[in-house]
């Protein structure tokens, strides 16, 4: 068959398919698959008969666009993300409890050690913090420090924005550097743990218990577990690279990154929640600090029971 007749006979079908791609009502949903298969047949025929390159190229691009539309995933959307957080994430945390435990140990181990050491030997604070830094932390939590410039709601929004930028950025960094054979989390988690433990012990030594613990307790559960999960996600990826098991190294790495990024998504959600509390609740001075510590403990209990109990019905 000459090309001209081939084009003439089949052009209506191609136009219909193109129209369907452009959201025009040329074809019903049930007609598309068979029309697409016929287009694929036309493409093969046009290639085999060496019709002109422009025609082959037009058919192949139409086929490519249809391939993407037909085999593309449906958008997952917000409901699916919430379902993931509610059920699947705790399931995955339980399934990978060893990894989460390692990540927790890397983070909380140095934290507790630094806290105990600096409590016992207050001068050792200078191993981690320069005198200026130490003084800055003391000043930050000193109740006598006037809140400079801004007060109330606008200051809360400013700090909220800063926590988002800084803390979620750290989560991303910890996760991504896990690709380097896990070195990123192996460094960032203990380092941040040492830093946190030292600051905590130093401020306790200075007698700033009320302001410091009143501030951090509310959001501590979400923020610290967020850090642990992002570390676990990074370790998942690095571990897959180092120990691929029965897959090829590349396939193992892809799967590890997929699983790790799910943990990271949980980490980001927790860190975001932490930033909300840190910005709009923790700095609140109207509530007595013991109440705030109580609320913080309550959040730890809720978060732990979510990790342990949520999503069991679908298991």
């Amino acid at each position, binding site marked *: 068959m000459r090309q*001209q007749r081939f084009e003439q006979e089949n052009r209506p079908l191609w136009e219909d398919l193109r129209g369907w791609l452009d959201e025009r009502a040329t074809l019903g949903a049930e007609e598309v698959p068979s029309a697409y298969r016929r287009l694929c047949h036309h493409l093969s025929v046009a290639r085999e008969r060496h019709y002109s*390159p422009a025609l082959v190229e037009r058919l192949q*691009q139409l086929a490519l666009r249809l391939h993407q539309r037909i085999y593309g995933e449906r958008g997952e959307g917000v409901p699916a993300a919430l379902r993931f957080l509610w059920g699947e994430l705790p399931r995955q945390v339980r399934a990978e409890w060893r990894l989460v435990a390692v990540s927790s140990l890397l983070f909380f181990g140095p934290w507790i050690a630094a806290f105990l050491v600096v409590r016992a030997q207050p001068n050792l604070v200078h191993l981690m913090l320069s005198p200026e830094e130490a003084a800055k932390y003391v000043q930050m939590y000193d109740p006598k420090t006037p809140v400079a410039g801004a007060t109330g709601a606008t200051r809360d929004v*400013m700090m909220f924005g*800063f926590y988002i930028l800084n803390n979620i*950025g750290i989560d991303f960094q910890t996760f991504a550097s896990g690709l380097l054979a896990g070195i990123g989390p192996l460094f960032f988690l203990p380092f941040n743990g040492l830093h946190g433990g030292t600051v905590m012990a130093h401020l306790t030594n200075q007698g700033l218990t009320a302001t410091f613990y009143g501030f951090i307790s509310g959001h501590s559960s979400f923020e610290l577990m967020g850090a642990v999960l992002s570390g676990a996600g990074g370790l998942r990826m690095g571990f897959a690279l180092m120990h691929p098991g029965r897959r090829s190294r590349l396939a193992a*790495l*892809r799967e590890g990154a*997929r699983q790790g990024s799910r943990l990271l*998504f949980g980490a980001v959600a927790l860190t975001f929640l932490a930033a909300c509390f840190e910005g709009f609740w923790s700095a609140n001075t109207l509530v007595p600090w013991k109440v705030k510590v109580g609320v913080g403990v309550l959040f730890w209990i809720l978060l732990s029971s979510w990790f342990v109990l949520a999503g069991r019905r679908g298991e």
Partner: protein
Amino acid sequence: MQSVDTVRTIETPEGIELHLRPAGPVARFWAFFVDQAVVWMGLMFAGIALTFLGPLGLGLWFILVFLAQWLYPVFFEVLGGGRTLGKRWLNLRVLRTDGRPIGWGPSLIRNLLRIVDGLPGAYTVGLVSILLTRDFQRIGDIVAGTLVVHEEAGVQAPVLPAAEPLAPALALTLEEQSAILAFAERSAGLTASRSEELADVLGPLTGSRGAGGVKAVLGMARYLWGGR
């Protein structure tokens, strides 16, 4: 005819082959450059506007910086059909290696791993990875299973130049017929002297040179296409 090319072929369940053209480092650099320029200009203007809001504005600006730094490419790639503004400018598109559109997971992975590709500075790791892989993939692309392809702008059906249909004197192979059709389709974009130069190659077939040769080749194209 086996040609040396960077085309990546994917086979679909319908048994046909689709061709993708992975984009090399230069096009991708310019796309990245445009993205960065847009993002930083946007942040600068937003920053100036937000200073009037004081600390509130600063807080909003921090959030904008966070979104621009980490999530701008992810949102644009997933919601914009695989194209950030820079990629749109350069007609590039991110796809999965099997030709399907990119989703949230792979997009997040490939964009976060820019940290690794950026080591030890100036995207050195990414560049080396692009140069070493067959499909020009940086580390983030390899791990996420994605690739950046050139998007051919929608090919218009070319109009064959009018000419008296002319049967070739010899039996032509399919490749030769296809080459003559390709010449006719492209002839509108060629200068007269270049057309003549190309048609002269077929001198033995057409038996004439110069403008007469071009006319004869276009006539054969018309005949092969099906004109009577």
